[in-house]
């Protein structure tokens, strides 16, 4: 979870904006801020909380009018007051947000703020999305101290670390401990949504009852998998050559109605491709595998012909090396021939899924057994 970013605007400003895609953290930060700004012993009279959830543009305009009225109303008993526009959902790039009533309404609010609201009135705005292309955002930036609480970017390396620290902190507060690998699994399964993470911790806490230690099996059995978690878990099982886990996951997901073609293309093929690419590279070249940086540098140092096929980042700035680096260790469990065959088997499975009426689960199960079963397994 990335630390909150704050704009350079004056900290002494009476206008505070808390934004970010992480709804739970935005809400928590806004609540704490409002509590801090509320004059002591002022009670509820010092707070003017306006719910910013608008069903339509007209309602958005009405909410803005209410905010202006609140800002222009003197505090009740002559003290200070806080006006909190809470969870404004009409500032983003949405149908309601683009409507004239919403745009004009918010600009009117900004006009009032720019005109000055007096030192005894403080304004707090919390929202999960705001359209940064609009002039309103730039005007807001000049007026307010903006605090941003975004969800971690799961496409970037190391996002789990920050989320894990947060999860670990919450778990400690509950008196929960986790077996090795269980907390990592929880973070991967819950994904980047802190609210879901908290909810899953609550479930685990309730399930354990008097027991205070959660194992991997508990996490697997109880935590609902996010979409990213599904992909990560199946990929993990393939990388670890854990056929049992892969089949178990497949059974659960197919039974829950997940599309097998989607599972193949989103979860299985990318993993097999990464394994094949990295195995091939390691076979033909010497690459640093001790750390991600060493791997990336050695990959960059290879001649262009050797890396022409390696996937690149969308902006074209370099190799998308992280999935390959993650596959380095896993690739030791497969031979190059096995991975060639695996990639071909993925193609066959895809063809079977889209051109035959075979049971999709059977096709994927057959694929997984072919990929992951030891090559020379003989039970007899």
């Amino acid at each position, binding site marked *: 979870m990335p630390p909150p970013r704050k704009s350079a605007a004056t900290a002494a400003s009476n206008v505070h904006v808390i934004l970010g895609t992480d*709804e*739970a953290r935005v809400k928590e930060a806004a609540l704490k801020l409002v509590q801090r700004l509320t004059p002591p012993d002022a009670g509820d009279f010092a707070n003017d909380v306006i*719910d910013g*959830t608008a*069903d339509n543009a007209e309602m958005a305009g009405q909410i803005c009018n209410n905010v202006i009225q609140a800002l222009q109303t003197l505090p009740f008993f002559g003290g200070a007051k806080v006006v909190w526009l809470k*969870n404004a959902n009409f500032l983003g790039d949405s149908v309601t947000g683009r409507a004239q009533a919403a745009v004009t309404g918010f600009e009117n609010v900004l006009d009032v703020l720019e005109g000055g609201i007096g030192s005894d009135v403080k304004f707090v705005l919390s929202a999960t999305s705001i359209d940064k292309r609009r002039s309103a955002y730039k005007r807001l930036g000049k007026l307010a101290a903006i605090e941003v609480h975004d969800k971690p970017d799961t496409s970037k390396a190391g996002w789990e670390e920050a989320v894990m620290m947060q999860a670990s902190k919450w778990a400690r507060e509950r008196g929960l401990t986790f077996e090795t690998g269980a907390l990592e699994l929880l973070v991967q399964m819950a994904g980047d*949504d802190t*609210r*879901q993470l908290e*909810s899953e911790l*609550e*479930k685990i806490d*309730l*399930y354990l*009852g008097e027991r205070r230690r959660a194992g991997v099996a508990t996490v697997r*059995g*109880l935590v*609902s998998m996010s*979409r990213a978690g599904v992909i990560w878990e199946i990929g993990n099982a393939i990388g670890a050559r854990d*056929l*049992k886990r892969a*089949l*178990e996951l497949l*059974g*659960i997901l197919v*039974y*829950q*109605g*997940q599309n097998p073609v989607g599972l193949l293309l989103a979860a299985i093929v990318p993993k097999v491709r990464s394994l094949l690419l990295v195995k*091939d590279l390691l*076979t*033909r070249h010497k690459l640093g595998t001790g750390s991600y940086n060493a791997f990336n540098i050695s990959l960059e140092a290879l001649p262009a*012909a*050797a890396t*022409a*096929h390696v996937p690149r980042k969308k902006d074209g700035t370099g190799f998308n090396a992280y999935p390959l680096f993650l596959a380095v260790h896993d690739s030791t469990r497969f031979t*190059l*021939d096995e991975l*060639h065959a695996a990639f071909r088997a993925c193609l066959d499975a895809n063809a*079977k899924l889209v051109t*035959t*009426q*075979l*049971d999709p689960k*059977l*096709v994927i*199960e*057959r694929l997984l*057994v*072919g990929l*992951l*079963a*030891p*090559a*020379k*397994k*003989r*039970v*007899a």
Partner: protein
Amino acid sequence: MSYQVFARKYRPQTFADVLGQDHVVRTLRNAIAQNRLAHAYLFVGPRGTGKTSTARIFAKALCCKEGPSVDFDPNDELCQEIAEGRSLDVLEIDGASNNGVEQVRDLREKAIYAPARCRFKIYYIDEVHMLSAAAFNALLKTLEEPPPHVKFIFATTEANKILPTIISRCQRFDLRRIPNTIIAKHLLHIAALEKVNLDEKAAYAIAKGADGGMRDAQSMLDQLVAFCGGEIHEENVLEIFGFTAAEAVAALAQCILSQDTVGALRAVHDQNEAGKDLARYLADLIQHFRTLLVQQADPEAAAEDLSPEVAQQVVAQARMATTEQLLRVVDGLGEVDARMRWAGNKRLHFELGVIQAVQSMGEVSLSDVIEALDRGSSSGGAGTPVAAKRTVVPMQQPAPVVRTAPSAQQAPAAQVARPVVKEEPPAVSREMVSSKVPDHPEKSDEPGQSVAAPQSVESSALWSALTHEVEAKRPLLAHWVHMGAQMEHKPGLLRVGFPKSEAHACESLKREDTRKFLEGLLGIIAGAPTRLELVVDSSLVAPPQPEPMLSFEPPAAAPKPAAKTPEPTAAATVATEPSGDPDFYNDPLIKATIEAFKARPISAKPSA
């Protein structure tokens, strides 16, 4: 009182009655016991897994007298109202028909009022994924911070259709598929209460057909009672629902695994004569082979849904074949399944598929042969592994066509489509790879005998002599050894160079066991312990070799097999094209064989 179907009559009334969802029940019980209730719950799961039942039980536990209590009395008046769906405070809403924003606004407006009789006002919205996006958004605010007396319970079969903002505001529980064993036991329990004599096998057959849904299973039992009365046997279940007995499927699989073509064909015939749907029978057979595969990987998972008798058969059958063989059978049967869908004569395709499956069980894969060769040659060339394994060569002639029901008298097992069995080592002899040693004094499989004359080799030909030995002892290493060229020989050290393009051969030979093998041979040939130094030398040029691997690099121009080293004594410079009919080597089969075995043609002899 009017008749109630089993699914309603035996709907779980307390937490203890909920089957197969222990993780959900335990969490909910603890939440009630510790009074740590969330304001919104989301139950996700396929049909018949207990979403509505769990929601009602949870509502009863919250609203019962002197509650919230885990051990509530289901006969309590409030609980009865909730169970019958007539409580004023527990509102069951069908999300599919109340999916608009107007209905949600209406709900929002009424939610603020206190409950009439119960402690909480509970909104249970079934099929919540059917709500429109606007309706979800209208619900968000209330769902975020509902009045203290309001609890929401949502149920859905398709969680992926619900907005993430809704999911994150709920405590989500994923209800799992109920294992067949639990369903079967519950059916037996119901049958006992209903005074119906239900066969255990029949219970398993119903459970299998219900595919993890308890309600489906109970409905099927209801139907059977209506049809059969007080006695229900497996045959009744199979007959009414068109299922095939698990034993029949296991028996057919047994015939295939034991390569009993006649038995397999007879099984198909019997099922066909009994009026079974062959497509379904085939699907069950494929599923059975899938279970065997899973049994090899995870015995617990495989046994979960099987009756004890079939589970035992599965354990035994999984030992009868390798994973590869099972995969081949599944692939073959899968193709038959695809063909059968559009075929007029399904039985013909089924029978052909079964015969192919029997034959594929007898085939030896190329990897088996290579492994056996490798093992055989490394252990002195006795070639025992494959010989011990019975090399089975599939018949060249097509299998006899069985036109009518096969019987033991008509087609004895030994005659019908029995693969020809050879009890001798594989025909892939070392002639193919090692007969190119005319000057070899004598070839013996024993390393000690074959290189009995130390110091008989000239210093400059040391590597060449070693190459011959390797061809004889470890043919699969020969390909790599041929890439090397002797660079230097000093007492106790032989330095061998490899072209840059063949660095992989160098690396492969450097492996611990391979190096030891080579140094052992070298010591015998040279007459003294000699260390082998393998290096990549860019001045060497490799001979052209077929490259079967997928390469991402563009193919290099074929280099001439000439080393630039002053003393090219090695096989890197040896001409590899044998004399003879060039058409022979252009034959696709020969080419494929050379590529598959990574072999080099040395000589061609007419077969005897």
